[in-house]
Every structure is written in structure tokens, then in C-alpha cells.
């Protein structure tokens, strides 16, 4: 076997993955150690989401699905928190939450601890509530749409729903002015279109992982979703609501690491074409 001498292009193409990972880790850590404070432009979908909530008449009731799993918390958690801030700041809106993800109730507790609703004078059971994780995903959505009390008689802590004033006169999909879903699963984001929008025409705001946005776009185009945002846009929501938190903090890191990706694509292609044109074909 003849040992071929490696050209510079070969070497460039064969950078060990450990080196690539090392560079990636550094580009995550550096902006965290030395924050730059890059600007963040607001995109139209986030603005539309904000306006939808802003235009809700006082006394409206919203259904919120904590449908994300712990894996997606870094992305969707900040969005959920920012939107709660907005709703509580605006006032006069009741928020009933449920979960189609089995981690939802625990993540709800995390979000509420971050929001601290008492700073807005909001109380559990009066202004907001969580009726628990309900199994079955689409079956759960359909069941709750028909009748909450026929599905579950208690909140997530096991206290009967009728002991909470927020639940007075709230029992089915028609009682809700708006549906919000935060999710890491296509079954959830699409399920709500099928089980609530298609059945009851409830206006629907949907926040998903950025990677899920493309498959959800046709629903937005067809008017089945009022606004479709990715959790990665939480920073923009925080800016609109004036409660800067985790979302905005990631802006520097995301910028630097994305620039790294673009650089990697460019270098990778230079190596590829360099090899091709220097006659290094196999």
C-alpha cells in the first residue's frame, strides 16, 4: 500500500472532532465570562404574540399548556416566564394551566418560582391555577375541551377545583378566549390545532423549539395559529415586557456560536473545493 502524502486540504478536512468541540466550548464560555450586550431586534411574530395578549379584554380566561419536557426548558422556560410576566402586568386576565407533558407540573413550579406572581399581587387559585398533568396528549386535549370537570376534579396538588374562585364558570373550551402552548413535542403543537382550533376555533398561540418551527409554519399560514414563535425568541419577549432574564442573556452566546458555525461552513467548503481543484480527487 502506498502511503499518500496529506495535502493541506486533507488536513483541513480532517480536523479531529475533539478540536472542533473544544472551539465550540470556548465560544460558549467566552461570551458568558465577558458579556458584550449585543442588540436584539424584535421579529413580527413575537410582536403579534405580544399584541394578541395585549388586546385581550379584561376578564378573559386563557388556557396554557406546559407541554415541554425538561430537555427543552432552557429554550421554552424563559418564554413561558416572560409571557406570564406580560399577562400579570396587564392584569384582569385569568390563566388556567394544564400539562400534556409529564414533566409539565414540575416545570410550572420552576416557572412560577422565577416569576414571583405576588409581586403583581396575583394569587394561586384566584388569578392562576394548574389543573395537572393529564395523560393521553390528544385525548387529554379533547377531553378538557369538552369538560374540565368530567376529566379532572382537582388541581395538580389534589385540591378540588371548586375550592378555587378562578374556576367559577370555567369548564370547557368555549370558556377560553385564548390558548397558549409551550411544547417540545409535535404531538402537542399539532394536537392543539386539531383538537381545539379545528373543533372550537379557539385563537391559538404556539411556542415551540426552533427546530420545530418549519413543520408548524403551514398551520400559521392557514390561520390556524395566530402566532408561532420559537422559545429561542424569548429574549425578544423579555424586551417587550421589560423583564430581562435568561432569554436575553443568551443573545451574546448565540451570536458568537452561530458566527462560529458560519465560519466552519466556509472553511469546510474551502477545504472541499481546494481539494477538488488541486486534483485531490479519489
Amino acid at each position, binding site marked *: 500500500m502506498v502511503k499518500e502524502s496529506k495535502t493541506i486540504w486533507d488536513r483541513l478536512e480532517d480536523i479531529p472532532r475533539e478540536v472542533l468541540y473544544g472551539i465550540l466550548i470556548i465560544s460558549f464560555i467566552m461570551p458568558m465570562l465577558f458579556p458584550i450586550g449585543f442588540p436584539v431586534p424584535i421579529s413580527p411574530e413575537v410582536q403579534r404574540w405580544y399584541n394578541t395578549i395585549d388586546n385581550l379584554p379584561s376578564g378573559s380566561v386563557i388556557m396554557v399548556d406546559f407541554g415541554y419536557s425538561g430537555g427543552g426548558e432552557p429554550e421554552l422556560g424563559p418564554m413561558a416566564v416572560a409571557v406570564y410576566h406580560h399577562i400579570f402586568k396587564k392584569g384582569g386576565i385569568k390563566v388556567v394551566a394544564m400539562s400534556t407533558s409529564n414533566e409539565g407540573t414540575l416545570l410550572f413550579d420552576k416557572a412560577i418560582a422565577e416569576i414571583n406572581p405576588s409581586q403583581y399581587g396575583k394569587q394561586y387559585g384566584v388569578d392562576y391555577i394548574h389543573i395537572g398533568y393529564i395523560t393521553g396528549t390528544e385525548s387529554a386535549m379533547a377531553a378538557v375541551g369538552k369538560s374540565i370537570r368530567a376529566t379532572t376534579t382537582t388541581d395538580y396538588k389534589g385540591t378540588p377545583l371548586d375550592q378555587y374562585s378562578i374556576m367559577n364558570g370555567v369548564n370547557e373550551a368555549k370558556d377560553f378566549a385564548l390558548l397558549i402552548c409551550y411544547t417540545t413535542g409535535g404531538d402537542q403543537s399539532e394536537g392543539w390545532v386539531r383538537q381545539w382550533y379545528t373543533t372550537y376555533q379557539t385563537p391559538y398561540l404556539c411556542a415551540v423549539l426552533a427546530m420545530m418551527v418549519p413543520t408548524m409554519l403551514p398551520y400559521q399560514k392557514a390561520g390556524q395559529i395566530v402566532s408561532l414563535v420559537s422559545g429561542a425568541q424569548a429574549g425578544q419577549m423579555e424586551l417587550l415586557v421589560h423583564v430581562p432574564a435568561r432569554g436575553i442573556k443568551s443573545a451574546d452566546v448565540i*451570536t458568537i456560536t452561530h458566527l*462560529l458555525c458560519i465560519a466552519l461552513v466556509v472553511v469546510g467548503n474551502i477545504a472541499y473545493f481546494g481539494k477538488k481543484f488541486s486534483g485531490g480527487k479519489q
Partner: protein
Amino acid sequence: MSIVFKRTLPIVIVFATALLFILEFFVTIPGIDFKSAATTVNNWGIILTAFTLAFGAVNLFIFQGRHILRRTKGQWPFSLWMLIVIVIFIVIGVSSGVSSGQYTWLYSASYFALSATVYSSLGFYMTSGIYRALRAKNIESGLLLIVGIIALARNAPAVAAGLPIIIPWEAWISAVPTTSAQRGIMIGAALGALALGIRTMIGRETGFLGKLTEAEKGG
């Protein structure tokens, strides 16, 4: 008789249940209360699904239990640990409840951290994938690459702020080619899902029956 009972009856149940939900949605027949029937069955389904949530743990007990009994080299201590973790979760979760402080502690210390990390670790592979594989080999991959770079640039908040020209580009890519291609795929997939539903209802898709005996396969 036996095959009818074991194989045909479940399919009849599937058909009848599915039909109930379809009828409830589309028609109203005076004198027949589809809605309350469907509501009841729907709520039954939720409880039944709750029972199925135990399958994962039972499967692991059976499968990992085998490793432990056989003392599979390099594996059985891990299998044992896995079963211990399951037991810890069950004991704390059932005895003190899922909204208790103890359970929240357990969840945050293990499952939450682990699942967040496991899924994020794919970001590393993506980086080397981007470096090695995102190549303009032909028109198709070139298109993918150009769109990918524009979207990457737009997703970096500061790049979008400093180079605002890419904001409308990305918006167009998202609203026109991406949405339209996804819509085409969606229409096809909807027909596929409906066809699957129909095959299931008429007993031509029997995966849910589990293992079939030779006689049942012939049926």
C-alpha cells in the same frame, strides 16, 4: 371461535370506538347522545393511558433483570443501579406526591439535569456535522447550504441587528419556500395518516395486537 374472540373482537372494538368519535364530531342524531358517550370513553382512555405509563418501568425490570441474573460482564452493576433509580423515584413519588418538595428535589437533581443535557449534547455532533458535511456538492446541497447560512446568520441576534438586510431575506425563506414545501409534505402526510387510520379500523394494521399466532396471522 377462539380466533374470532382473540383477534376479531379487538378490531371490532377499535372500529366501534373510532366510529363513535367520528360520528360525535360530524353528525347529530336526535335521541342519540354521542357527546356524553364520547366524553365517557375519552376519560376512560386517559386513565387507561395512565396505566400504560408503567410499561417502560416494567420492561426495564424484565430486561435489566436478566442482565443482573446473568451477571453480564460490564453491564449488570449498571442495570442494578438503573432499577434502584426506578425504585427511588417510585417510592418518593408515590409516598410524598409529585408536587412535594422531596420529589421536586429528586427530579431537579437527576432527571431534569440529565434530559436537558442529553438532548443538548447533540449540539456537539451538529457542529462537526456542519463542518464536515455541509458542502455545496451539487445544486440541491448548494441550495440547502445557502439557505442554511442565511438562517444561521438571522438566528444570531447581533448579526441580524448589524446586517438588517438579512431579516427580510430570512422572513421570505421562512414564509415562502419553507412554508410551501412543508405544506406539500403535510398534505401528503395527512393522507398517509388517514390511510393508516382506515387500515387500523378495518383490521389491516394489527401491530397493536402484539405477537400473533400462526393461525391468527392467517385470519
